């Protein structure tokens, strides 16, 4: 009857030729892995890592550049904006200054004109008053002289009457 374990112990006794072939195969395989397979793939892994790293650094460089350019443009834009606002501000202040200057000039001129007019009016009034005083005096004197005649020879009375008349004249002019 056949059983599983016929000659089972033989399984665990290595044979000489088996050892020889196993060793030969092990040496060949190990040499293959040590000298060719692993170095080759390590080189590929390293190269790949390098390339990926290089790409990453390149991308980083590009990003930095872009950031820098963007910052530059933004700075320029801000500068321009500041300049523009400054210019408009300047213009506005200039304009207001001009306007106010014009205002003051016009005001002063107007005031001057008005003052001049006032003065000339006053002087004319004065003149008129003086001339009127003289004329009214003489006219009244003459008139009174004619009316009163000799009665008015006396200087004092003459003077008193004159003053009275002028007062009256003043009052009437004031009443008007």
């Amino acid at each position, binding site marked *: 009857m056949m059983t*599983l*374990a016929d000659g*089972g112990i033989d*399984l665990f006794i290595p044979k000489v030729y088996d050892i020889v072939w196993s060793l030969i195969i092990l040496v060949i395989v190990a040499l293959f892995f040590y000298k060719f397979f692993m170095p080759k793939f390590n080189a590929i892994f390293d190269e790949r890592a390098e390339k990926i790293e290089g790409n990453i650094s390149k991308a980083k460089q590009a990003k930095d550049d872009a950031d820098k350019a963007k910052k530059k443009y933004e700075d320029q834009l801000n500068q321009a904006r500041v300049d523009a606002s400054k210019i408009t501000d300047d213009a506005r202040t200039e304009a207001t200054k001009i306007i106010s200057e014009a205002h003051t000039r016009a005001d002063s001129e107007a005031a001057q004109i008005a003052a001049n007019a006032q003065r000339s009016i006053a002087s004319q009034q004065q003149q008129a008053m003086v001339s009127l005083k003289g004329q009214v005096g003489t006219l009244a004197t003459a008139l009174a002289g004619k009316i009163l005649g000799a009665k008015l020879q006396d200087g004092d009375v003459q003077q008193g009457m004159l003053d009275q008349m002028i007062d009256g004249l003043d009052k009437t002019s004031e009443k008007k």
Partner: protein
Amino acid sequence: MDIITLAEVAGNLSVIGYGLATIGPGIGLGILFGKAMESTARQPEMSGKIQTIMFIGLALVELLGLLGFVALLIK
């Protein structure tokens, strides 16, 4: 097989021995995998490490069963 023999037991006694020898490693494997699962559930982030240790344990437990097998072969 003659008439007097009612039940014949044929085969190899060492097979029974091997059957007995698998009980221990069977229990061991059960505990091993159960505990590994438990600890992986507790700390999923450690699963790689746990798995490595589990396979080392598996190898050691498995050896016991295989020793029984070898004993069966050798007799």
